[in-house]
């Protein structure tokens, strides 16, 4: 394949990778702060997708206005979920959190299927893209990548320059010490969980601007989020963004050179390899 083709694939990979990164940020944040692996992560992504659908198609609002709405409603949902399912699990073995969140996932997907069946939904969002020779970079992809970057940046500012954000990082690093220094850790944990879910929801909204989706679409992105979390390092949102881009690059780079059916094998092979050699993540920057 020609150079242009390969470059195009690389750029495409980076664009979609930013979104993968955003999708994983919520997972890694929750994991890092409270040692809970949120298996309902995929369901929350779907929540964001349907959010876009209802706001844009049913209510006719401009598509990107759904982004802030997703963040806020995702946060609210996350806090509720925390109190319903996660609160009692904190501090217990990892298995418990896996199962509790998995149960929540079952319930949500079950309700979703009953309400909306597993039919596909599509929201038509058109933005002018950038064309370069034969290749076009879709407007929505570029927008999604840019927004992902912006949100990641905002997250960083939040975690480092606001009181709540710093409290979250304190709790993540040492809960007891944080409690002793007067931080209401339980409330902070619930907010951190809310934040993680908000991130999942908004990534779902962005994904829905690019692709059609079904009630079950969350699973594929959840798996990818695991891979990204491992690549980027646990509890490290910035790492997640980089990890996501790395994953996108892998997808973009393998396709020109080998049958496309090998891409997942490479992805998961890399995943396992990464776990074995860099358990703290390739981009093992210091936490936060």
């Amino acid at each position, binding site marked *: *394949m020609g150079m242009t083709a390969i470059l*195009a694939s690389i750029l495409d990979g980076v664009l979609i990778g930013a979104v993968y990164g955003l999708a994983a940020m919520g997972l890694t944040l929750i994991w890092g702060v409270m040692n809970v692996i949120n298996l309902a992560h995929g369901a929350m992504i779907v929540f964001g997708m349907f959010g876009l659908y209802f706001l844009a198609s049913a209510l006719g609002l401009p598509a990107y206005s759904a982004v802030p709405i997703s963040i806020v409603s995702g946060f609210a949902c996350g806090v509720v979920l925390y109190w319903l399912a996660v609160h009692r699990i904190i501090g217990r073995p990892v298995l418990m959190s896996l199962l509790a969140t998995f149960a929540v996932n079952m319930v949500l997907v079950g309700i979703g299927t009953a309400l909306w069946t*597993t*039919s596909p939904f*599509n929201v038509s969002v058109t933005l002018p*893209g950038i064309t370069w020779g034969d290749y076009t970079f879709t407007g929505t992809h570029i927008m999604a990548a840019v927004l992902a970057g912006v949100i990641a940046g905002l997250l960083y500012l939040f975690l480092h320059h606001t009181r709540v954000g710093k409290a979250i990082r304190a709790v993540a690093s040492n809960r007891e010490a944080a409690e002793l220094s007067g931080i209401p850790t339980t409330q902070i944990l619930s907010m951190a969980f809310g934040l993680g879910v908000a991130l999942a929801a908004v990534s779902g909204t962005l994904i829905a601007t690019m692709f059609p989706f079904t009630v079950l679409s969350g699973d594929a992105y959840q798996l990818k989020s695991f891979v990204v979390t491992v690549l980027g390092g646990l509890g490290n949102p910035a790492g997640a963004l980089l990890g996501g881009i790395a994953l996108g690059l892998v*997808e973009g780079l393998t396709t020109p050179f080998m049958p*496309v*059916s090998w891409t*997942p094998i490479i992805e998961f092979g890399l995943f396992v390899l990464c776990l074995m050699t860099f358990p703290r993540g390739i981009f093992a920057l210091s936490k936060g």
Partner: protein
Amino acid sequence: MKFARTWFGLVLGAAFAAGATPALAADDTITIGFTASQTGKLNNDSTAQMRGFELWRDEVNATGGLKVGGKQYQIKFVSYDDESQNTRVQQLYTRIIVQDKAQFLFSPYSSGLVATAAIVSEQYGRVMITTGGAEEKPYRLGNKYLFQLYSPADQYLAGALQALKATNPKAKIAFVYEDDPFSKAVAQAVRRQATKEGVALSLDESYSGSTTDFGPIINKIIADKADALFGGGHYADGATLARQLHDQKAGVKWVTLLVAPDSPNFATLGDAARGISVPSQWEPQVSFRPDFGPTAAEFTKRFTDKYKIAPGYHAAGGYAAGLILQHAIEQAGSIEPAKVAEALNKTDVTTMFGRTKFATDPKEHGLQIGHEMVLAQWQMKGGKLVKEVIWPKAAKTAEIAY
């Protein structure tokens, strides 16, 4: 000793025979059993199919029931959720046959589940009409009571290939399909046919079902400078492929995707849907003249009135399965499975679904050999996106838009 043994054997035999005869339910009903995918990824298409079954049942019951040998039987359904997985299919079909005493069976939706269910239906000698399964493998396993309604997978893209050849014989075809049993079966057939017709497949690759972004694949297609694209898989990928092809301005002049574009939902893709063609088991516009039962137009109207949504071919297949079974039972004049199977083997009729005839060679018993696929294309008509039938020439309602 021998005397006692013979007696014992006779008594056992009688008891067995009495137990083995399909119990004629007290109130003259015929029970038909099946599993439907009420949860899981096959949910959407399976529900459409089930509605087709139900419409048929309601219509027959409204006229008093099935007429068999002088008596009339009401039709009763018994169905369970198979969760789109074959884990419980055997358990559920066994229950349907043994506990619910179903005399006839419809298949689950999708070929993988059909094969698993067939082991049970064959054991008990129950006739099973399969719809929603286009793969041939289940019929090559040595069955006697399986009957396929759909055109098999290897027919799927046959028409599309011919239509393309008629429009642009020198077209370069890229073939990108999902890594799943159905799409693979279609793929193998396409390759065979392409070689036979001397058409070149410039790209021939499968993608994993969990693929979320087709960007890289589309870039590959663009680099390949393909004129035509065949492929896809089940719904979600087809829709995503179509949308991304459009967004990335891939410039492919002929696009035929499997399954996805057939659903009316596909129109929500807007401009991305234009020009996309899909091989279909049936379209509401087809003009077959049925030997019995309603015409396609009548069926469409009845279905739309009842369910407020236009029927696709899954629903039509469900309805036709009922029709064909009804016809066979009435022809056989009996509800004995063996006699009905014989009647089905002799069946060669046309309904609103098209022509139905089953292969009787034991090596591929039940394979559908009479039905032809049509090719439909989304075109702009009066400012709205509609599906038109563009192939075969005998059934078409509009010209090919290339």
